[in-house]
């Protein structure tokens, strides 16, 4: 039981990191950014390249090096996110939403098959594998790397929450989500704030990508597809557009999956997760923390 909860929370914190980007972007420009999962994949591959270039340092210095790589990958994926928005979404800002949605799907393919061209279709093995002796806590098998990764995820979310809720930029983000025109008239540079939102969301997805690579050990060019859909599910469960909702939704989805696979068997994991998505969309489309229902796609 404790084991199931722990596993759920662990996987859930990955989902939450990716879901935040989904949800923030949706909140601010009402776009389901289907390329978001692929930014996560891009984060893994960035981490893979960076770690490969410093492989001499691995072993004794694994953890500090990994943290540095994490930071650099976040900067890189964040920048890519900003470029994607500028090139693919901004020119279409005033077109019908469906057009932007299709563009997002196209962007997703560009990233996936671009990486396939560069790294090939077969899975790559991550240079660092975070394994460790398990610690037993209340009958649950917990490893040190798991704890480290969860602490990193929690710290990232803590700082994000602080940024969005307590700062000038955060206020500007929330005001754009609520009323873009009025924000413009309050002197908010909307384009700049949207760029910043993409940077943050993509950086967090990139971080999750590096962490997943280091934990699971193997990465491939399609790994972002399923996690993108899972993150979308998490965002819907929590209430899309809502920051706390994305965090909560990620953890709830992780727990649901963990318990679901325990009852139904591992091969039912994705079936169960997406059944939850359908159930939420039909019975509580606003999610756990969402309120307004009028502006949904």
């Amino acid at each position, binding site marked *: 039981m404790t084991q199931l909860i722990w596993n759920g929370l662990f996987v859930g914190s990955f989902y939450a990191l990716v879901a935040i980007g989904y949800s923030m972007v949706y909140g601010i420009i009402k776009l389901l950014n289907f390329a978001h999962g692929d930014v996560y994949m891009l984060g893994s591959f960035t981490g893979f390249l960076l770690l490969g270039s410093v492989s001499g340092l691995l072993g004794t210095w694994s953890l500090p090096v990994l943290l540095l790589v994490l930071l650099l990958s976040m900067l890189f994926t964040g920048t890519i996110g900003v470029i994607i928005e500028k090139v693919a979404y901004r020119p279409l800002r005033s077109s019908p939403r469906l057009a932007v949605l299709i563009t997002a799907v196209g962007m997703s393919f560009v990233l996936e098959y671009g990486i396939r061209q560069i790294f090939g279709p077969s899975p790559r093995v991550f240079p660092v594998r975070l394994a460790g002796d398990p610690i037993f806590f209340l009958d649950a098998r917990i490893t040190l790397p798991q704890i480290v990764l969860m602490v990193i995820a929690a710290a990232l979310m803590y700082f994000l929450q602080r940024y969005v809720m307590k700062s000038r930029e955060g206020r500007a983000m929330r005001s754009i989500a609520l009323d873009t025109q009025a924000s*413009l008239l309050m002197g908010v540079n909307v384009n700049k704030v949207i760029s910043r939102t993409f940077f943050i969301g993509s950086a967090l997805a990139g971080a999750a990508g590096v962490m997943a690579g280091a934990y699971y050990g193997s990465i491939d060019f399609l790994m972002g597809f399923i996690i993108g859909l899972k993150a979308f599910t998490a965002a819907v469960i929590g209430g899309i557009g809502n920051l706390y909702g994305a965090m909560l939704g990620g953890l709830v989805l992780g727990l649901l999956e963990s318990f679901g696979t325990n009852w139904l068997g591992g091969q039912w994991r994705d079936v169960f997760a997406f059944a939850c998505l359908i159930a939420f969309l039909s019975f509580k489309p606003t999610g756990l923390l969402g309120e307004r229902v009028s502006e949904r796609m």
Partner: protein
Amino acid sequence: MSEKTEESEKTEGRQVALPGSTDAPTAVPLPPKGDLLLSVKDMHVQFGGVKAVDGLSFDVHEGEIISVIGPNGAGKTSAFNCITGFYRPSKGSVLFAGRNLTRMRPSNITKLGMARTFQNVRLFKDMSVLENVKTAMHSRLKENVLDTLLHTPRYHRAERQCTLDAQGWLDFVGFGGDEEHLVTQLPYGEQRRVEIARALATKPRLLLLDEPGAGLNHSEKQALIALIRKIRELGVGIVLIEHDMGLVMEVSERIVVLNYGKEIADGTPHQIKNDPKVIEAYLGAEDDD
């Protein structure tokens, strides 16, 4: 002494050049209050074949209150949207403090010192009263990312100053409620006040009020008139769109009248009240039997 009196008599004599004109004080245009702020020149706004604004010109000076009136659909709000940069005029120009606004982004127009309120209150609904006003200080508040993430002393100083300023503006407009409440929990009249406080927090030189009196009761309207005058005393120029003629006549120094997008009159309240074209636009033409 005697020379001076002669002199003044002479000038007086020159002024009363038209004997018999009884409305001499209104015939002479009021002297400008301050620097020229806004100058709308022959503005046209067109949506497809619809001419929403068809030739509008007026000037606003610092510390001056101008009203734009006209029947429903006369193009008043379109004119406002054009001045604040949401629409581009199809012809004509808008100059603000000597700069052409027609190709400028709304956020930059705000930075130059123009602010507005909306016909239907448009506050940020999920934010508290205080946060709404603080958002308006966005472009003047300097905080960098590290400061906000680490909550450095510089961040605390900036936020404290921002909060104090915001509270100052809420006091200025006479907001009496709880500033931590969500704006949606406030009565309508208070929401209007908060919206004006938010507009003022951008430190405007020119304030555009789009039907600020709509939905207010009599005593709230009296308070609004007092507030508008108080804002004018800050040296802010004010442009008002309003349907309530009592309010307009009482508070305005000059009135511009629009009908079907066309400017049909521009003058003091007294002139407007007696202008046959204005009366016709509002009441319909009298039939000549």
